[in-house]
């Protein structure tokens, strides 16, 4: 186990790709997976701050572009890649 692993947020509506990324990253990072940008914004506005976000662009409800714009509106979220 890696002490204090970085937190990666994966946003993808395609379950196989979401699971694949989780499987690859989970040995070195703390991983959270969500299905679309709306879920991700809700999760972040609930006080969860990832170190890195890996987001698909084409997703239902709120896509990757809208999610990115939603993050950019909040100064608190502008610092992460």
């Amino acid at each position, binding site marked *: 186990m890696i002490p204090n692993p970085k937190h990666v947020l994966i946003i993808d*509506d*395609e379950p*196989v790709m979401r699971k694949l990324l989780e499987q690859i990253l989970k040995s070195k990072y703390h991983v959270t997976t969500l299905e679309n940008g709306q879920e991700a914004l809700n999760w972040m506005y609930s006080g969860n701050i990832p170190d890195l976000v890996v987001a698909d662009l084409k997703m239902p409800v709120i896509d990757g572009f809208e999610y990115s714009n939603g993050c950019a509106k909040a100064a608190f979220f502008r610092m992460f890649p």
Partner: protein
Amino acid sequence: MTEQGPLFDLKQLDELAAGSPDFVNVMIDTFLTHTPEQVEHLVSAFQQGELKRMGEIAHKLKPSIDLFGISGLTATVRSIEQKGKAEHRDDKLSAEVLELDRVMTLVFEELHKMRPQ
């Protein structure tokens, strides 16, 4: 097996798994849980003339088809995706959707057999 060769090839998945059978099994389970429904939705979208939606589903299916090495559908899924995006129904589209449905059904059956009971 198909006329062209093996139905699928897990080489890429095995490489990503780096020797972990759990990794491969989790991915097969995830594939078998979610992908049959996606194929059903693609066929349904085609039958209902919703070509744009059909193309969007093909776009989502494409990486799984590549990951599981279903080489018999590599070109087919891309063709369906492009025709859906262009909302272009030509005389080959019906056969392509039928082929995708046929091959994926065989893949699901074979992968089910590989899973531990």
